[in-house]
């Protein structure tokens, strides 16, 4: 299906949705129609009107025929073979994730019965090392779905093919600008977004009340987070904020960078309107202010877990469900996770856990002093490797296109993101499956509303190193008082400068 053909189809659906919205407006007020619109006239996403209300209003307004859409990209009787690596459902994930994964492969086999997919499921912790090694040894798969941060390294090394949404039959406008930024390197597109996720702030309303805070109002600014955390500690003896600062753990930058960006900082200039990734912001005034706020909580106020330096987010869950932690940054899936933990708690702990779940609230991440709100634009992208690094030296491009078209369309990009994420294809937000998710996953509308505030990590090959090592190192240097806050920031800046020259 050509890009033009898809744009027409998309516009038709928009018109249909606009009609539905205006119809609803008769009962709900004239303003509702425009609010339900999520695309501006030029086809780009209108992020100014992306709220829990508009998200709920548009869900369930679109019917999708995935097979028909895919047939426009690759004929359904195409015979071929494709190798595919991805982070498969882990044992610890909810059963529904396993079920949907199985359903996906059954549906693909039914749609493309003559395409054989050689599937390799890996764990998140193993995949990066394995795929790096495989690509070095010319044994990479033809197609791989990878977390958003990883792809650029392979693109920079020339190991990925240029491949964008249009190659899978979808116009670029169907994807969030932040997501497209994450697959763009040196002006070229090297993948298709599969799912996008943003986190939110969750808090224990009962603990807020006990500390003398408004139980239904989250901290509006990061300075408020510091103040609330202190107040919770002083008035209840419990930890206020679930700070995470372990090195080499993805959890750390996902929780620290939103504060850094909100204060006007960044690692490079990724938070700028038009980032060049040439400037280093990690020691600018905003970054130092963000670091200082965390220093205040950890060292001065001692209002966060002492174990923050060795903790990952998983270690914050038990204190939260036991009512010993006031607030933390979390995924939409955290609610389901807490419910599971409460259900599995001992009888003695069950009552407390159930109370915490009942008092759990989701809100937007706080703003910075200038009113800026930011969150990490997370998720995954799917990439096609160059034949030269692929096992066998050959890529069945049509089989790859079929698989990518099938998995990144509105239906499966919604279903595969069921528990903890969002569809990459924004038409997915209009489907009945999205409505079902919104109905069954509490607070999904809140976390989804954070998407317009999403900032992808710098799209440079050194990004993994900067985010997983240099940023946490900086935090640890400051929080252990091995260095002053300013020195820790300057040290991080010099490390970033060094790695561009292959330093230690």
């Amino acid at each position: 299906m050509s890009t033009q053909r898809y744009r027409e189809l998309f516009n038709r659906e928009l018109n249909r949705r606009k009609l539905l919205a205006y119809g609803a407006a008769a009962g709900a007020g004239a303003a509702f129609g425009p609010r339900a619109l999520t695309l501006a006239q030029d086809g780009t996403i209108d992020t100014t009107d992306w709220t829990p209300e508009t998200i709920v209003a548009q869900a369930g307004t679109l019917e999708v025929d995935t097979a028909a859409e895919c047939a426009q990209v690759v004929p359904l009787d195409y015979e071929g073979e494709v190798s595919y690596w991805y982070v498969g459902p882990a044992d610890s994930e909810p059963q529904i994730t396993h079920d949907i994964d199985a359903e996906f492969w059954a549906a693909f086999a039914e749609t493309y019965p003559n395409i054989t997919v050689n599937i390799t499921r890996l764990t998140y912790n193993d995949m990066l090392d394995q795929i790096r090694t495989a690509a070095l040894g010319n044994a990479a798969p033809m197609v791989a779905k990878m977390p958003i941060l990883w792809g650029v390294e392979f693109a920079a090394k020339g190991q990925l093919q240029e491949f964008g949404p249009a190659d899978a039959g979808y116009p670029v406008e169907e994807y969030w600008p932040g997501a497209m930024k994450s697959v763009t390197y040196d002006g070229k597109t090297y993948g298709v977004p599969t799912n996008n996720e943003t986190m939110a702030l969750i808090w224990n309303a009962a603990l807020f009340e006990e500390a003398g805070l408004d139980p239904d109002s989250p901290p509006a600014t990061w300075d408020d987070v510091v103040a609330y955390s202190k107040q919770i500690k002083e008035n209840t003896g419990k930890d206020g904020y679930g700070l995470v600062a372990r090195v080499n753990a993805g959890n750390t930058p996902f929780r620290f960078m939103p504060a850094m960006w909100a204060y006007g900082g960044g690692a490079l200039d990724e938070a700028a309107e038009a980032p060049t990734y040439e400037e280093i912001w990690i020691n600018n005034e905003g970054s130092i202010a963000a670091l200082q706020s965390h220093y205040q909580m950890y060292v001065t106020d001692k209002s966060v877990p002492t174990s923050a330096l060795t903790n990952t987010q998983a270690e914050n869950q038990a204190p939260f469900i036991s009512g010993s932690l006031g607030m933390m940054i979390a995924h939409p899936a955290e609610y389901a996770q807490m419910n599971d933990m409460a259900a599995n708690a001992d009888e003695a702990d069950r009552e407390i856990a159930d109370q915490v779940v009942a008092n759990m609230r989701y809100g937007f991440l706080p703003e910075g002093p200038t009113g800026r709100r930011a969150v990490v634009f997370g998720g995954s992208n799917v990439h096609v490797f160059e034949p030269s690094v692929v096992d066998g030296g050959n890529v069945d491009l049509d089989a790859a296109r079929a698989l990518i078209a099938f998995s990144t369309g509105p239906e499966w990009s919604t279903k595969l993101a069921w528990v903890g994420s969002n569809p990459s294809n924004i038409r997915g937000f209009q489907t009945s499956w999205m409505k079902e998710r919104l109905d069954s996953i509490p607070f999904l509308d809140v976390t989804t509303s954070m998407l317009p505030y999403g900032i992808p990590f710098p799209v440079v090959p050194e990004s993994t190193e900067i985010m997983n090592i240099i940023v946490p190192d900086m935090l640890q240097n400051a929080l252990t008082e091995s260095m002053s806050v300013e020195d820790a920031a300057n040290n991080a800046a010099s490390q970033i400068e060094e790695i561009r020259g292959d330093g230690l």
Partner: protein
Amino acid sequence: MSAITGSQPTTEPPAPEERGPGLAGRIAALPGDIARHWSDYLYILPALGIMLVVIAYPIFYTVRLSFYSTPANLAMDDKIWIGLDNYRRILTSDSFRSVTRNTLEWTVFSTFFAYVIGLGAALVIQREFPGRSIVRGVLLIPWVISYVSAAYIWKWLYHSDYGLINDTLIRLNIVDQNINILDNIHRALPALIIANIWKEFPFAMIMLLAGLQGVPDQLHRAAKVDGAGTWARFWHITMPQLKSVSVVTILLLMLTNLNSFTLVWVMTGGGPAGSTDIWITQIYQLAFGRTRFGVASAYSVILFLIMMALGYFYVKALTRGDAEREGA
């Protein structure tokens, strides 16, 4: 009797004809020796082939890679030759000094205390007492459980907020608030060393127990008759008899500790602020966290040379033990 006199060391040098062939003679005889043993070579050929592929080639490749720069934005084929620059940068960097200091502390203290505690445990369980088998079994538990499990057990024991150690100390009124253990730059490494000693001392215990069982009982009895006390017998009989096995045990412990990764990685990831970073975690971080394969290879070569030196002493200790036994 002749057997005894035959093993006495002779004071006179052997006659020239008894010394065996010189180097030239040995070289000349080599083709003949090989031809005589061709079937033996065939037997070991598959093993040699596998070793070449899985050991010799990776070593060669690592050494070669250590002379290249491999920035994250370049494919491996585009790596840049920089000669000894990786070695220069490692050896002159601040991080190398701090990581080396950590590695030495980790290796020396872990080895020393694992050996001392292992020796004490071996001396205890060598004696006959009721329940000895149970005690032996219990003491072996740390050694037989996996490193990952041990790391998680100790991580939760030490946990700065909810750890069992802190909880116990507070309940016993020894402290009134949690002690920050793993999240403190001064306490994290000693805490890891304690966990490592716990994990390793049974190995030393088993090795030394085997050595103790080889100490002739009549020596102890004779010394006792001569009025030697417990300490004198331990110091002048037991320890000299354990010399060979002690050297081997200490060398093996040192090699193991220099190669330790799991305990440190799982418990602290090298943090906080690099206070528990040791050579092997640094190499892993450089290679897989930072994709600096060239620098990581140079680091590995340095570690390899140190290990080879220790390996040399290990083999020498083993062969000296053999020589002593043959001499005896």
